[in-house]
């Protein structure tokens, strides 16, 4: 009978299930050669430079610092042998990625991460092995990375909050700088770093409100507003710095710093201790902020609404959610977070404000947020990676390597480019990011 092909019965379910299977089978994105090729190339580079051209010295990595409550022995690795072993494993991983591609299967995330870790390790062994004093403190390297990453993490959290709600925040740099300046001047005048911290949040929020007002209410292109804000904040803080701060440095530009708060016992755990339990208030706030933003975005009612507004504002509107108000307050909140990140420069890292103290870190934070795929945790680790590259270049320059220091100074930015362009798969920003919402 004809029922097989053309049954007019209104049977529910059957066509749905059939086409669901079909859709799922075809919805997979095409697997690209990009990652396998990139991994292979890096593997070969590692093998030649870190392995074959490695030094014959032994690289020594200190794990414990003097303050630890128990001591671990330093790790010693023969530079050339270590480089060869690690790069061979890397080549193996790359070959597996190529194999997967020939089977039209994507490269799994664990492989990319393992590869990255191995590459960094091989690079370290090579650089340290080739240095005049082939010894560094791993604990110091990592702790320093976290310190350098603090403003980046705050900046990228700000970006996550803004983009998740549908507003592109190019003004992170301006928010950091505004926060740094305000923290310095307010803390100096009040002689209270906590008031400075609060003022930094307000300053960041104020910069963000301008972004929010222009891009949400007046529908000005968000990229342009962001860029203009960066220039504006840079100009205003620079002007006030030379006209006010320089005139009376003692009164306006000598903020009392935020002390490092050490948590007894816990801070003595090797490597982890200094990272988690030996931070300034801003450092602790960073961990809290990452967790709170992540939980907030993905586990709460607020987060569901925020993400809906950033993905499909009209759908949110028809469900009774006030799209533009949600956007405005989220962008403001993002600015406040970036402002706190900015205070790190003047209240923790350095004890005074100088022109352009944020030095482009707002843009690195932007890269971290993309590398972290618009996820607070992802952005945190991405920021750590950039902080690590930043710290590595300064340490390596100190211990004296054969690599020219100018090249090492490129490292953070090189890592940024590689990370964003190569290792990230096709990442998908919130669908309505950058598009103003107009009712009707």
């Amino acid at each position, binding site marked *: *009978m*004809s029922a097989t*092909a*053309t*049954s*007019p019965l*209104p*049977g*529910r*379910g059957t*066509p*749905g*299930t059939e*086409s*669901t299977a079909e*859709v*799922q089978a075809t*919805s997979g994105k095409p697997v690209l050669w990009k990652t396998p090729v990139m991994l292979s190339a890096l593997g070969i580079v590692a093998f030649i430079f870190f392995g074959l051209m490695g030094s014959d010295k032994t690289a020594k990595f200190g794990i414990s610092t003097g303050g630890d409550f128990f001591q671990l022995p330093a790790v010693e690795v023969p530079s050339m042998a270590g480089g060869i072993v690690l790069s061979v494993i890397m080549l193996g991983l790359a070959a597996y990625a190529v194999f997967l591609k020939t089977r039209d299967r994507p490269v799994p995330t664990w492989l990319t991460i393992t590869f990255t870790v191995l590459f960094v390790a091989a690079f370290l062994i090579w650089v340290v092995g080739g240095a005049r004093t082939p010894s560094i403190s791993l604990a110091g390297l990592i702790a320093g990375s976290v310190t350098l990453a603090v403003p980046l993490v705050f900046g990228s959290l700000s970006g996550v909050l803004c983009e998740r709600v549908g507003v592109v925040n190019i003004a992170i740099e301006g928010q950091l700088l505004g926060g740094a300046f305000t923290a310095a001047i307010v803390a100096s005048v009040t002689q209270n770093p906590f008031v400075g911290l609060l003022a930094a949040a307000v300053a960041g929020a104020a910069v963000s409100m301008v972004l929010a007002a222009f891009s949400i209410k007046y529908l000005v292109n968000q990229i342009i507003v962001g860029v203009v804000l960066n220039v504006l904040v840079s100009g205003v803080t620079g002007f006030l710095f030379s006209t006010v701060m320089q005139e009376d440095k003692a009164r306006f530009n000598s903020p009392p710093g935020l002390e490092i708060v050490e948590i007894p016992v816990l801070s003595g755990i090797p490597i982890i201790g200094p990272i988690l339990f030996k931070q300034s208030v801003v450092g602790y706030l960073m961990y809290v902020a990452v967790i709170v933003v992540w939980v907030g975005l993905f*586990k*709460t*009612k*607020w*987060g*569901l*609404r925020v*993400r*809906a507004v950033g*993905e*499909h504002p*009209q*759908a*949110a*509107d*028809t*469900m*009774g*959610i*006030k799209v533009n108000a949600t956007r405005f307050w989220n962008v403001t909140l993002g600015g406040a977070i970036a402002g706190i990140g900015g205070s790190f420069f003047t209240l923790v890292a350095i004890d005074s404000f100088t022109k352009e103290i944020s030095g482009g870190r707002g843009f690195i934070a932007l890269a971290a947020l993309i590398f972290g795929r618009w996820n607070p945790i992802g952005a945190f680790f991405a920021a750590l990676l950039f902080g690590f590259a930043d710290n590595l270049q300064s340490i390596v320059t100190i211990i004296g390597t054969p690599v020219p220091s100018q090249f090492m100074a490129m490292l953070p930015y090189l890592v940024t480019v590689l990370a964003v362009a190569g290792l990230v798969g096709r990442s*998908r920003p919130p*669908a309505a990011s950058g598009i103003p919402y107009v*009712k*009707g």
Partner: protein
Amino acid sequence: MLQPHIPSGTDTDASRLVRVLKLELRGITKRFGTLLANDHIDVVVEPGQIHCLLGENGAGKSTLMNVLYGLYEPTEGEILIDDKPVTFRGPGDAMAAGIGMVHQHFMLVPVFTVAENVALGAETTKAGGFLNLDDTRRKIKEISDRYGFDVDPDALVEDLPVGVQQRVEIIKALVRDARVLILDEPTAVLTPQETDELLDIMRQLKSSGTSIVFISHKLREVKAVSDTITVIRRGKVVGSADPGDSTTALASMMVGRAVSLTLDKSPAKPLEKTFQVKDLTVIAPNGQHTVDGISFDIARGEILAVAGVQGNGQTELTEAILGLQERVYGSILLDNVELVGRSVKDVLNAGVGFVPEDRSVDGLIGTFSIAENLVLDRYDQPPFAKGISMSPAKVLENAKTRIDEFDVRTPSGLLAAGTLSGGNQQKVVMARELSRPLRLFIASQPTRGVDVGSIEFLHKRIVAERDQGTPVMIISTELDEVMELADRIAVLYKGKLVGIVPAGTGRDVLGLMMAGIPQEDAAAEGHATASPEGGENA
């Protein structure tokens, strides 16, 4: 909360569950600038009814529903629920009052799961604002079981077929205890089979006490499910109708003049065969043979309609003729000139007129004016161009003639084409293609998303072109349209030609052929089953 006008504010959840709701729109007027979209509209939706708002595209149905749903504020008039006036400041108020809406373009977040989409805006939370999606999953399952929806709460919406997405929209409304469900052109995106399923769901909802406002211009569906029909034309209620009224009567009321739904078409007088396709094969970038060894010919003064379920090679076939496909093998002869391997411009200059299947993407440039769109194929030829300069006066003059001739409803030819309604856009495309002497006319989905009044007009123009002695090829997934226009019917299945049959072939046989069953077998089976609607859903 300060919502003094909403009577439901005092209701508890329990009382709302059993409440049946009477909805009345009284004198609703909505103006956009100078445009009067709704003009004193009165509609009463009695509890537990399927109330159809019938009207052509652009008649003001959607505007009216957006007013009812709180998305627009009415310029005048009031909404009454159970005879008490209410004011909606936003969709939230409307939902709280028991009104749910399924929009024509779904309001679902593609990257969210079904549960997240359903929860959005009406989240149940644990202490501290944490989402309680388990509660939402349970509700989805409950509704899904009650109506046999078969929806997985944890599936990502973007992975679901359109029909299932629509059910998610209905669940969204039901979870919010909607007592009146507005369905805005719900069948526009559905296959015939999914449409039947939806109509069935509507009946079930009605029997469980949900009133439905069904917005449509598809007469067959309206007649199948409605209890009451209100006809809207150009922003005004022109009267109510009974679902028992004849299709012709309903169509005439909707369009405002007598329409004949059956096309008045004289038998074809085919002349010489000037268009021949031989062993045509098109290979897609992924290596698939999208058109696979097709041969047919069309005579002057004849309409060949190509039937088939969407995605069986129709698009590639037309694109191959136009020169838009890269890997084309075989031969396409028009007036004994080979078209394979020619540029699109050569093909057009050989006298091929082409109406693409998606007018907004391939047929028009939405931001260009109507006048400019009308000369897209001849902007560089006299009288529109002299050397390197264009003559805007001539372009506008041409537009005036075409707009009159094709009855395009627009105040001016200088308006952007994108502002026109679907039917009027299609008239612009058709006017452009038919306004030069043709040796072959191809129209793909000539009346998709077009109102009844325009369909009639467009069909007449296609037949007129045939009667002038042009070979005409129509590609349509609507079997009704194929059967109405065709002098011969070619059926495509998976890129292959299943067969070419004469115009009088039955719906059931065609349906089977569209599923790939050859004509002889189909005819045998078709007689065996001989059901009147058979094959429609193939």
